[in-house]
């Protein structure tokens, strides 16, 4: 009998050599455009590269020491964490809430589901430009609406006030992104067997109890997608901040990703910027893996 060569890719996952050959083009592209540049980035984090010249001098841990020694580095970190927590909570809570409200059959629910999906069809950059106009201090829709409702005292220069700028950006990102989370949670809800709810109802469980003891555990696979996804998206935020405030006013909305760009292009400090990028990568990895492990423990318990 002819023996088929097999390749062990990971524990418990083996494929035939013939099948493995089909992976080569994909792996080559991934290696060329992801692994190789990322590896290069790790190298440049230990150099004083200015971003212009081909040469760079090895400086060891100097860039990382500068990041952790400077209090100025912590402001973008704090802003990034605030944004991540803010969008993480709102996207998941609102996404789940909308999914629960719109889960069912009927024309009205279908129509509403379609309407709520509209923001998802727009790019975040385009959305950010539109919300820039909404938050504009003089002719902005929000302030005009407040004046119309005789609530003029609540008017703000939303993106020019350090107390409201970041939360205005969070609101924009949440408006645009909630639909995706709603969609994933809706898919999860569709997978919850209705007989479980019926059985629990017969046993006298109310809606709240059914939600916590049936819906939530059954939605763990959806949480496994949504929570790490929102954390990763929050930590790497760049586009919406760059378009809406450019990190201002006075650095109040500077995130790690915008700081990386500024260090590279404005300060010609690409080595330091790459080190910041490595720190951001480490934060993202910890948040993503940590959240997955945490949610999986929850899944096992149930």
């Amino acid at each position, binding site marked *: 009998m002819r023996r088929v060569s097999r390749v062990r890719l990971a524990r418990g996952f083996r494929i035939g050599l013939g099948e493995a050959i089909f992976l080569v083009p994909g792996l080559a592209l991934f290696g060329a455009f992801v692994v190789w540049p990322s590896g290069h980035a790790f190298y440049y984090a230990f150099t004083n590269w*200015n*971003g*212009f*010249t*081909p040469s760079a001098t090895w400086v060891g841990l100097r860039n990382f020491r500068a990041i952790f020694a400077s209090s100025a580095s912590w402001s973008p970190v704090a802003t990034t964490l605030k944004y991540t927590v803010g969008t993480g909570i709102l996207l998941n809570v609102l996404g789940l809430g909308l999914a629960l409200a719109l889960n069912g059959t009927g024309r009205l629910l279908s129509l509403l589901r379609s309407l709520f999906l509209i923001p998802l069809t727009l790019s975040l950059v385009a959305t950010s430009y539109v919300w*820039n106009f909404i*938050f*504009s*201090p*003089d*002719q902005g829709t929000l302030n005009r609406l407040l004046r119309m409702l005789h609530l003029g005292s609540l008017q703000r*220069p*939303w*993106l*020019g*006030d*350090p107390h409201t700028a970041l939360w205005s950006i969070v609101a924009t990102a949440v408006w645009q992104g909630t639909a995706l989370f709603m969609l994933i949670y809706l898919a999860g809800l569709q997978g919850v067997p209705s007989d479980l709810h019926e059985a629990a109802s017969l046993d006298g469980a109310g809606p709240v109890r059914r939600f916590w003891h049936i819906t939530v555990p059954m939605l763990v696979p959806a949480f496994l997608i949504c929570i790490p996804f929102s954390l990763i998206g929050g930590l790497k935020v760049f586009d919406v901040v760059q378009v809406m*405030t*450019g990190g*201002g*006013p*006075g*650095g*109040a909305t500077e995130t790690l990703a915008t700081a990386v*760009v*500024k260090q590279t*292009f*404005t*300060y*010609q*400090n690409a080595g330091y910027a790459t080190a910041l990028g490595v720190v951001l990568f480490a934060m993202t990895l910890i948040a993503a893996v940590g959240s997955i492990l945490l949610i999986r423990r929850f899944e096992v318990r149930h």
Partner: protein
Amino acid sequence: MKHRFLRPRHRRVALTVVVIGASLSVGVGLGAAKPADVTLNITTWNPQSIDQLKPINDAFTAKYHVTVNFQALSPGSDYANLIGTRFASGNPPDVLFIQRGAGGSTLAASKQLLNLSNQPWISRLTPAGRSSASYNGTIYTMPLDVNFQDTVYYNTELFNKLGLNVPTSWSQFIAICQKLNAAGIVPLAMGGKDTWPLGTIDQNMIPADIRRYDPTFFAKRYAGKTTFSSSPAWHHFARDIILMGQDTIFHDPMATTWPDSVNEFVQGKAAMMIGGNWIAPVFNGTYGQATVPSFKVGDFVFPYLARHSPNDAFMAVTVGTQLAIAASTKQKKAAEEYLNFFASPPNLSKFITIYQGPTAGLSGAHATGLDPLVTNILKTGILSTKRTFGECLINSVPSNFYDTLRTDIGKAWSGQGMTVSQMLSDLDNAYNQGRPQMTKAYLC
């Protein structure tokens, strides 16, 4: 038997091939020598300049048979980023237009620009042009238009209606702002959200403070003999610029973009705005539908630190646009010809007329048909033509300096509690951090 290398028939064939091949290669060689086959990649940040400079580029192509591929990469500060990326990836343009403060000296310091010191137009460099074109005593750029630093444009109708006169001192300026505020009008439109417009204020105030209180500051700071925190000029500047945020000169400056600020002004919601001479034609009826019919505009020198007489407010000049050649270009000859062609007095005169530059960085060029607003400003103020303070200020500090300064101005003007000592300490830290980059920089 005598060995024959090729049979006669084969020799004939080989001879024919050789003759045809040689003819083709000569033809190709001649073709390559033709300038018509040379393409010069030129980049700029200004999309409008593609049309504006087309006559000059077409004339160059007609004369030298060099195809000009003229590209506008991106307006605003993104241009410097894109150019930086092009150089870093080994794919720079052959010739590049460089904005004021957009990294010309950084590129020169990184040896990315061609040394232009032996070019024929060097002898025509004005003192102001030479100072901005030099880095470590070597010429790396060709200065085109020389402009005065930003001036104050004002709505004459509004001023007349409220009985306001053109201010000739700082106290008068503040008083006017207070009156405008009381009338519910934005005194000075400011698009601080885009950050760079903050420079229209600080680049006016710093030269005035340096000139009056600490003329040798930058040389001393470079030598480590003084600090921003201990300089009277910088104390004066920091105090005044922080106060500007409290004096209700602006309305929501950090929430307003540059286009919004222009709209505020031309729609009569703001009484004044600051801009360079390049914006003068915009105000004189060419701003399109946003211009209100009654909109009439005048201008005056920013009255910060006016000294002996009302018209004694110091006004620095700066080179607006420069041309440079990438050191790695394969079209060196054509690129040098392009600069030479641009440097000719008729072409340079055309350029500075388009951009309303009062003068040029090379002698022999004269703007014709300057906007009345520009000629008015030229009658007032002190135009420093010996030094270009604009470039000088940029080259006298490391690249991170102005970002730190404008972040702190943003903090002050958005109510984040900025103090004079904090601002000066931040500037010292930024300078110390970036100081290693400054290899024999050209100092003010």
